[in-house]
């Protein structure tokens, strides 16, 4: 299916130059909370992408009927209802996954990327571009999470997805897991490093300095 330039920008922009985490600096809270292991990062990325796409479509369909004064409340109700349904379905059909995510499913409601996209995009665009925008922003958020989770689990626990990857002889030779990686400050520093590399490669994103 051919995509017009605008829809392409809605889908692909958030992956790079319009990334919700490293350019708009949204959703930082959950980027700290769930990324100490790779697996919750992956599941969180998928869950946010699905909820964001669905919420975007619903708000986009309703956009001509929503009273302006209560539009934030309407958005919140839609997101909260979707998250509750996702959580209920997980409990019934994927109990183990639900147990791993525990409180993080509920935390999706508080992710400011969701409200941001609903407010900035879905209220002014049709369902199809809104859907792509949701998928794009979800993935843009997700790849940062996965990248941060990858380094934190690798350097903090010496594992990836729970499997040992740092061989035992490294430990015998005096290598130590970096406990600091497991703590939230390291997630911030990693996000900052990603922002640094990204800005260095995209000079047009750099702010003017006096």
């Amino acid at each position: 299916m051919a995509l017009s330039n605008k829809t392409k920008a809605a889908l692909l922009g958030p992956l790079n130059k319009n990334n919700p985490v490293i350019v708009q600096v949204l959703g930082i809270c959950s980027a700290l909370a769930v990324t100490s292991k790779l697996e919750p990062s992956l599941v969180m990325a998928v869950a946010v992408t699905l909820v964001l796409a669905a919420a975007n479509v619903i708000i986009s369909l309703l956009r001509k009927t929503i009273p302006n004064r209560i539009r934030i409340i309407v958005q919140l109700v839609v997101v909260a209802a979707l998250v509750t349904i996702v959580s209920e379905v997980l409990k019934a059909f994927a109990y183990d996954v639900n147990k791993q995510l525990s409180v993080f499913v509920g935390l999706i409601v508080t992710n400011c990327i969701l409200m941001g996209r609903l407010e900035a995009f879905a209220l002014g665009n049709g369902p199809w571009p809104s859907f792509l925008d949701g998928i794009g922003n979800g993935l843009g958020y997700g790849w940062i999470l996965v990248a941060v989770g990858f380094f934190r689990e690798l350097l903090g626990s010496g594992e990836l997805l729970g499997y040992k990857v740092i061989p035992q002889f490294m430990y015998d030779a005096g290598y130590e897991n970096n406990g600091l990686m497991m703590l939230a400050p390291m997630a911030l520093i990693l996000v900052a490093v990603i922002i640094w590399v990204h800005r260095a490669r995209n000079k047009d994103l750099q702010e003017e300095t006096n």
Partner: protein
Amino acid sequence: MNRENSGYTIIYAAVMVIIVALGLAFTHQALNDRQTANVNIDKMQQILRSLNIDASAAEAQQKYDELVQNAYLITPDGLKVEGSEGTTPDDPAFSTELDDEDAAGLPVFEALVDGSQKYIIPMQGAGLWGPIWGYLAVEADGSTIYGSEFGHQGETPGLGAEIVTPSFREQFTGKELIKERQFRSVAVVKPGQTAAGRDYVDGISGGTITSKGVDAMLLNSVGQYSNFLMNLNAAQ
């Protein structure tokens, strides 16, 4: 139609809330049976893990029926509550939680593993971010730990959440709850430290508050069973 009209806004909000409420209620009703079944299977898996058996969700029910011979409630004095026996999810032992204020007693599960009797007791406590819980399988002498299982709601991954890993749980095997005819529980200490007069295991580095929570949970939850365990110990 005027979207900024107050009447429209109120009706819109009311209709939206009713639709969402109906939708959520319907979802919950439709999925409730499956969810309850999952919760019961999960509890059986936890009980089996305390017996050092890692059963998948599909085989948990069968394994549970095979190994768990009896379940009942006991009074704080350690005596069996009459008529509380039964191992199925509908029976009091399975459905009673430790923090149930008006429960008729404390649940105990009896299992027969390779011909030897084990007693499984549930535990409940608090970690850093939320509740933690677990099961402790004790040998017939009422003191030696055969296996343990821990769960948590939202401890920090990589730190407090490590209490569920086999390497933490396996430390408990062989430890003794009763020392010199006194219930002492098992201490969870900082790695490298010791506990005088009682058996101890290493806590999680960086998960100090969760480790302390496990320590307190063992003391308090298992402590409620001290008379029951002492009776078993005295009968040896």
